[in-house]
């Protein structure tokens, strides 16, 4: 039976659990940090010696932990790219700019268990020779900012931060930095620019890979809140034990944000890949299905920028059988294991772990119009295809939802989206294009019908009435 497995959110919702230091210490807080600092250097079978820090980095790599922010990239590999020979300081930034529509998991950690994040950060900083780190919290989380500030103060007073932390001879400081309402700050190089006090225009890669040329042109690690919390548990339980959670290549737990047309929206921490998309939506331990009498029309599986899945779609997945042979199986979208690889095989992504369910009362034209308006508003404006294209798409969808559409708008939307993706400095271009590409391709009849009805004056907001004012 699929059920929650609470590792990171183990205590967060328990009665009486508070975000202060004393409570965290009572629940075994900062023990993982002590364990990390006491890690002995080791010699590998091939005679190569590993420092204590290298042992921790190796553990994180072996745990299979993949970034929980959206890209799902190996955390250990990301750390291994850090330029450690430049002689420049290395910085670490916690990306707490949670802003992918549909996502509300980091919010839980920041508000309810801030010390867990700080402990994960201290361990990660220590393992990567970082002396100065930042938590970039989105501006719309004013209470989280206060809670984090308080937690940082407590950590300083306990000697977990500051000079010579816990007598280790290592100095470390972590500061809070607040964003101010811009989605693009979630993109790591945009975030870095923002932290430098500038407009958050993403940097072009190459050459500005954060691991080499990040904050102040120094090597920089940017990790998501949930990822850094996972590091604490990897150190605590050991990489091998952590890797037993979840499924092959999709280890550990993930906090899924479920919203939209389900009976019980909310956040659910599960072992990665142990529950299917259908179970997360329908099972009594999770979403408990749709409202009575309704059925699924579509699912946005990984935040609003992921490609939509249409009810009834089937996908071919490669599976390893008991005999070790790879076989291909065809599954319905509801039977897709909710992990990084299966969603990718289905042509979309699990992204930030945010599932938005759309039932049969929702019209894909209206849904895409809403999503598209978001991207038009949030484009930073640096690259022409995105700045103009995102707005053109939103305008076309606005007229389609205001009785002034055309049948040709469907193709027009596809044309614009195709000319944004791959032509921008950062992945926002794809984030803006993918919803349009997937919605219009999969629901083309609905888009064309809406436009045709408007041309004939019989659309839902047309019917011969004067055009809606805007």
């Amino acid at each position, binding site marked *: 039976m699929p059920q929650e497995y609470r590792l990171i959110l183990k205590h967060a919702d328990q009665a009486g659990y508070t975000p202060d230091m004393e409570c965290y210490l009572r629940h075994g807080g900062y023990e993982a940090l002590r364990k990390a600092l006491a890690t002995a250097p080791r010699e590998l079978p091939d005679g190569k010696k590993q420092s204590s820090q290298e042992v921790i980095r190796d553990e994180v790599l072996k745990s299979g932990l993949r970034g929980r922010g959206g890209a799902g990239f190996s955390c250990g590999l990301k750390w291994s790219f850090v330029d450690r020979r430049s002689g420049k300081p290395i910085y670490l930034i916690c990306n707490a700019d949670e802003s992918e*529509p549909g996502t509300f998991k980091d919010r839980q950690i920041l508000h309810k268990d801030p010390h867990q994040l700080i402990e994960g950060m201290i361990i990660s900083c220590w393992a990567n020779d970082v002396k100065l780190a930042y938590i970039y919290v989105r501006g719309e989380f004013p209470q989280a900012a206060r809670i984090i500030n308080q937690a940082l103060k407590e950590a300083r007073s306990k000697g977990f931060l500051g000079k010579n932390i816990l007598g280790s001879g290592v100095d470390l400081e972590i500061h809070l930095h607040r964003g101010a309402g811009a989605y693009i700050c979630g993109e790591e190089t945009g975030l870095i620019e923002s932290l430098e006090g500038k*407009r958050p225009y993403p940097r072009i890669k190459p050459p500005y890979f954060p691991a080499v040329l990040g904050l102040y042109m120094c090597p920089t690690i940017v990790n998501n809140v949930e990822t850094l919390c996972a590091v604490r548990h990897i150190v605590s339980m050991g990489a091998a034990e952590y890797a037993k959670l979840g499924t092959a290549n999709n280890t550990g737990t993930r906090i899924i944000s479920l919203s939209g047309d389900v009976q019980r929206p909310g956040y659910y921490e599960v072992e990665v890949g142990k529950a299917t998309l259908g179970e997360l939506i329908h099972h009594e331990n999770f979403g408990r299905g749709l409202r009575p009498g309704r059925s699924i029309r579509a699912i946005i599986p990984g935040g609003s920028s992921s490609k939509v899945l249409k009810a009834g779609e089937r996908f071919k997945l490669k599976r390893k059988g008991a005999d070790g042979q790879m076989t291909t199986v065809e599954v319905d979208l509801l039977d897709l294991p909710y992990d990084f690889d299966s969603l990718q095989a289905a042509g979309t992504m699990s992204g930030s772990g945010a599932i938005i369910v759309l039932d049969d009362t929702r019209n894909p034209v209206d849904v895409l119009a809403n999503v598209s308006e978001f991207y038009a508003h949030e484009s930073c404006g640096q690259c022409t295809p995105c700045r103009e294209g995102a707005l053109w798409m939103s305008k076309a969808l606005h007229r389609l939802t205001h009785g002034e559409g055309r049948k040709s708008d469907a193709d027009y939307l596809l044309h614009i989206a195709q000319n944004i993706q791959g032509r921008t400095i950062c992945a926002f271009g794809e984030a803006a294009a993918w919803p349009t590409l997937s919605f219009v391709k999969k629901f083309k009849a609905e888009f064309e019908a809406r436009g045709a009805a408007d041309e004939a004056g019989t659309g839902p907001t047309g019917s011969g009435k004067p055009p809606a004012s805007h």
Partner: protein
Amino acid sequence: MSFSIPAPLEAELDELVTRYPQKRSASLMFLHTLQEHFGYVSPEAVEWTAAKLGLAPINVFELVTFYPMFRQEPLGRTHIKVCRTLSCSLAGAADLRKKFCEKLGLDPKAHVPQTTTDGNFTVEFVECLAACGSAPVVLVNDTLWEKVDGTGTDAILSEGKRSETRARSAGMAG
């Protein structure tokens, strides 16, 4: 109105500068702090920040115009931000915003921040507030209201009115 920074506020800002290897990094935190104190970011606040951080005023002003949370004029004391993004929209965010506007005598069709003539309330649509599981949500000043329905709407407005009354009597007492 002359622009002056009280000493405790300046001390707070000076401390912020020490958190970064480069002064310019403190600009966003400066703007937040100044906006919290003055209610908005005035041209004087921009110039003061620029001088303090060794920047040209445009380096600060371009932040005020880019980041949606910074504002260049005072807004209502109770600032109602209704989330308009998908999950909240599915849960009726458009009707919710309309209800706020109607109850406060604002234009429900206008898509920009609007402030009541008495300066007590501002209503605006904002993008995702990251609380989609309890849609529709509204951020009122620093407080998040979840699953806001008709009762929630009334509660937000009456709480806003109560704080106006408190502020007024405090002002008269002072």
